[in-house]
């Protein structure tokens, strides 16, 4: 049943470029898709370990910059008269490096930030993201600062039989994003239903109890942070090679907030949640654009976030799933069992 819904949804998404010819809408779908990947990676931390990281955009941005710099090349002076020169590599190598470096950053940030919990964890993660933004802004020799890195090459795939295929058109990029999103979704689903996933959820429900049954808290949280950061790095790399220009504004706090809104509105701790929430909030600006000024859109954005937390605190997907199951069986008790299986957390 769940598999059938997933396959139908993927088929529906895959058919979009075949009938949608409007380049503006297709562009909105591609950037939304990239942010959905980021939101899915954030959900791994927020929904399955319960840690609210508000610095998640740092890994996205690091992925974007690593990917861009690897494929553009750079020449910077380091302290002590050392010059670091790098000749351009193919974009696909940049993407792999982006995943690797973002994952490593996730490891170090996780190792340091998981020493504190709750509000302090949130504030430390914000601080890391802002420090990275300020470095990107001020290390002009490497990043061009506010002048932005431009002319980032598009991703090229070497396919057997066809030769090298450079992904320039919107349709090609749409399918690239869809494939990466699908891989990320399946990876997270596999992870969540493994032994490791149960350890993460155990930790979220009750950390003391989890420790008492032998779950290594630091190892579990750090591993979740590494995987989450690596996926965010992949999303950042896609972003850099699709938009083909990045500046330090990619690290803006509002981008993290966008991902958080996608996760919370869709339903944290639900695999489909970030996808549903992401599509709604990613495409909301497109729908509002003809009727509202940009500032008014942002006011609506903040208002909708507040409204969701008041009205649907558990998110759209878990609430709908519960209603669906209750109607079919008429037994609320069964509904809560089924929901625990999909990983949705009952409000404390």
């Amino acid at each position, binding site marked *: 049943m769940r598999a059938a819904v997933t396959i139908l949804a993927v088929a529906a998404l895959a058919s979009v470029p075949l009938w949608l010819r409007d380049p503006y809408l297709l562009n909105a779908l591609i950037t939304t898709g990239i942010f959905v990947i980021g939101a899915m990676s954030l959900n791994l931390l927020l929904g399955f370990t319960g840690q*609210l990281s508000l610095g998640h955009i740092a890994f996205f941005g690091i992925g974007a910059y690593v990917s861009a710099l690897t494929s553009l090349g750079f020449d910077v002076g380091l302290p002590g008269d050392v010059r670091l020169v790098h000749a351009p590599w193919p974009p696909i190598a940049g993407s792999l490096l982006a995943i690797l470096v973002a994952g490593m950053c996730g490891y170090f940030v996780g190792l*340091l930030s998981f*020493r*504190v*919990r*709750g*509000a*302090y964890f*949130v*504030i*430390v993660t*914000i*601080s*890391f993201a*802002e*420090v990275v933004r*300020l470095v990107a*802004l*001020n290390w002009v020799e490497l990043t061009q600062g506010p002048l932005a890195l431009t002319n980032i090459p598009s991703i090229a795939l070497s396919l057997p039989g066809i030769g090298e295929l450079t992904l320039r058109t919107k349709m090609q990029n749409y399918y690239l994003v869809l494939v990466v999103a699908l891989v990320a979704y399946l990876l997270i689903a596999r992870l969540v239903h493994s032994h490791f996933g149960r350890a993460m959820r155990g930790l979220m429900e009750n950390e003391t109890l989890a420790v008492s049954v032998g779950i290594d808290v630091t190892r579990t949280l750090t591993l979740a942070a590494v995987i989450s950061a690596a996926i965010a790095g992949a999303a950042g790399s896609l972003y850099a090679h699709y938009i083909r220009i990045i500046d330090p504004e990619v690290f803006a*706090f*509002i981008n993290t*907030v966008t991902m*958080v809104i996608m996760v*919370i509105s869709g339903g944290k701790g639900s695999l489909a949640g970030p996808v549903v929430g992401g599509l709604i909030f990613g495409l909301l600006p497109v729908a509002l654009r003809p009727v509202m*000024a940009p*500032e*008014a*859109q*942002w*006011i609506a*954005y*903040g*208002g*909708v*976030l*507040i409204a969701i*937390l*008041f009205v649907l*605190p558990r998110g759209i997907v878990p609430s709908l799933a519960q209603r669906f199951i209750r109607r079919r069986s008429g037994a609320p008790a069964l509904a809560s069992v089924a929901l625990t299986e999909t990983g949705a957390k009952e*409000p*404390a």
Partner: protein
Amino acid sequence: MSEFLQHLVNMLVLGGTYALLGIGLTLIFGIMNVVNFTHGVLYTFGAYIMFIVVQQLGLNFFLALPVAVLAGWLLGATIELTLLRPLRGSDIDTTMLVMIGAWIAMQSGTLWIWGGVAKSVATPFPEAPLVLGPVSVSWLRLFVLAAAAMLILVTYLLINKTSLGRAMRATFQDHDTASLMGVNVDMIYTSTFAIGSSLAAAAGALLGPVYVIFPQMGDLAAVKAFAIVILGGLGNITGAVIGGFILALAEELGAGYVSSGYRDAMGFVIIIAVLIFRPTGLFARAERVG
């Protein structure tokens, strides 16, 4: 040496307003356990009240500060009553996200009403600075320091010498017990949020005329306030005052001797360093986990 003295003087002026920001946030964070992302917006709001009163209404500069304090108090009480009171008892992440929503909405509202162009406020002080040996300081900055010091003193007396302050301190220690002793905890929460917000608005009204006023000015101010609270420890007013001056000193020295581009990074570096190496804050006794 004279350069260093000049940095110290600048630190005093900045530190006073930072302390105001920090006290406001440490009260809210400490007593209500709410990570208040609207604190920066209240700072911006105070600055715009200054702009409205002085530039748009043409009233007296010195009248604008009390108006800003009062307006901040009212806006803070409104936020608490409409957004936080219905969510009493929900987890800290939920209230934090609601505060983020309110911050986005209010900041965009500011941008919508007044536009993104930076505004400046005319002051009644002479242009020529006061020169004391090797250092010089403008009269406006001296006024800012004096006003901030006065507001800090008033807040200190309010918390330590009045019955409202005693009830606030009791709620901070243990809100269940305070409630059993007849303290109206709901009222204390609203008052705390209103007082904290009015202090943020006062800081904005004081620093607005020193720099320029624009809708996003509160974002960095909020971060600085968080750094100060983490330095000084939760709910610790003296800690917040000392933390405000330490942050101002770190920024002045960082901008003067490292690179002015990294001035605003100091707050974040302090947050990361304190939480990693001394997570209880520099002066706090309370444990800080969970």
